[in-house]
């Protein structure tokens, strides 16, 4: 038997999770459909006027993508926990946080990235100025990985529980608030014609912090949940 390196283990988990996700395209589409529907509730529920929609658009898109991510988090470890492969992952020779990082990366590829790609269409429907689309996508590009990373901690803590889904939102939403503030702040300062690099740097710092710490916390949480 040959030893499998850390990088190979990472790639194997990403490939496996992507394959599993693409075998069920319906589940893959659910968060996206939710995203589109949640965004379209705002013009219907508050006001279809351009004077409301254009300044609110960044926040609406951000809140909707945050909720859509939240919806998809429960599935991150649950299926693996039910069929026992999560236990195999914790026993694997590779460090668990690397494998968690791989699962989070796969989650971002199947949830965060599609949301990011869909966002300009919705932003145009909300009358966002075309020059701001790039900034909005940039804020989502840096922000959505953080949503997956922090969300993984909540998903790992609740994986063995029946009430998981609701509890995740309670645990994770407070930690999402800074990302939301800086993500929308970036678009708003760009809309006001100001320099947004400072906000982008803050968002990047949050990404760096959660990229280095969240996998460890999620791995520790998984070990606790699995050992139960």
């Amino acid at each position, binding site marked *: 038997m040959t030893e499998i390196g850390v990088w190979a283990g990472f790639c194997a988990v990403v490939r496996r999770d992507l394959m599993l996700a693409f075998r069920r395209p319906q589940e893959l589409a659910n968060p996206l459909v939710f995203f589109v529907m949640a965004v379209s509730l705002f013009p219907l529920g508050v006001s279809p006027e351009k004077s409301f929609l254009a300044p609110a658009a960044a926040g609406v898109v951000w809140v909707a993508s945050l909720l859509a991510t939240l919806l998809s988090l429960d599935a991150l470890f649950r299926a693996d926990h039910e069929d026992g492969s999560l236990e195999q992952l914790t026993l694997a020779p590779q460090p668990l946080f690397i494998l968690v990082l791989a699962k989070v990366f796969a989650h971002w590829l199947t949830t965060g990235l599609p949301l990011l790609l869909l966002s300009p269409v919705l932003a145009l429907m909300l009358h966002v100025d075309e020059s701001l689309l790039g900034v909005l996508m940039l804020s989502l590009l840096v922000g959505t990985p953080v949503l997956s990373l922090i969300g993984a901690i909540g998903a790992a803590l609740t994986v063995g529980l029946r009430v998981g889904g609701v509890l995740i939102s309670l645990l994770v939403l407070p*930690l999402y*608030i800074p990302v939301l503030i800086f993500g929308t702040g970036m678009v708003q300062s760009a809309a006001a014609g100001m320099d947004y690099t400072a906000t982008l740097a803050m968002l990047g710092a949050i990404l760096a912090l959660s990229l280095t710490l969240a996998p460890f916390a999620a791995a520790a949480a998984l070990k606790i949940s699995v050992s139960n």
Partner: protein
Amino acid sequence: MWEAFKQWFHRWGSPKWFYERSLMWSFWLGWGALILLPVGMVWGLAFAPQDYQQGNSFRIIYLHVPAAILAQSCYMIMAVAGFVSLVWRMKMADVVLKCAAPIGASFCFLALFTGAVWGKPTWGTWWEWDARLTAMLILLFLYFGIIALEAAIEDKITAGRAAAVLSLVGVVNIPIIKYSVEWWRTLHQPATFKLTEKPDMPVEMWAPLLVMVIGVYCFFGYSLFLRSRNEIIERERRTLWVRELLAKEGKA
């Protein structure tokens, strides 16, 4: 010195030792709170001089600031307990973490509530999405999350360790609260109290505040000990020493 500290640390980690020693501690802390809180309250509310700008409305500071300070230190205590629980697997750390959460949440709510009451006459609004206020609201949500997680997991050891991870993750919020008034100069005024500097208000004004802060800490210690003692008896009810204790008191 180090050996003595280690011994002290391990003794407090034992539920039986904790239960026996905490009675005396909770007694003195309870008396401390019972004396300091009314003294500070009457002194602050009735005798401290009026603020030259805010008049009498500033007096809510004597409730607001101690509650806010305590809500944050309670979270720090929980994070330290969480760290101890994860590293040394101490039962008592789990107990302290679990028992501190509702107290911290109550004080956090009190700080937000008194802040709203204070904000209405001074800022003309009950609530503002100011950085300090929002960060405190997040702290309240974190407390709720920890309490909910602790309640959702049936096995007490798993629940304790899961709550420990969550409280360590949430600790990033504490420096945000602390520095929010300096990073974003918005509505909320900068810190009233600093350990390193002389407060820039007259002694007649800050002395009752100091009394209130110490009194609130006494009350916190008292209720934490009380709750922890209760929790210990509940968790250790099958052990010999608890059975003997209950038999001695004629309750089992």
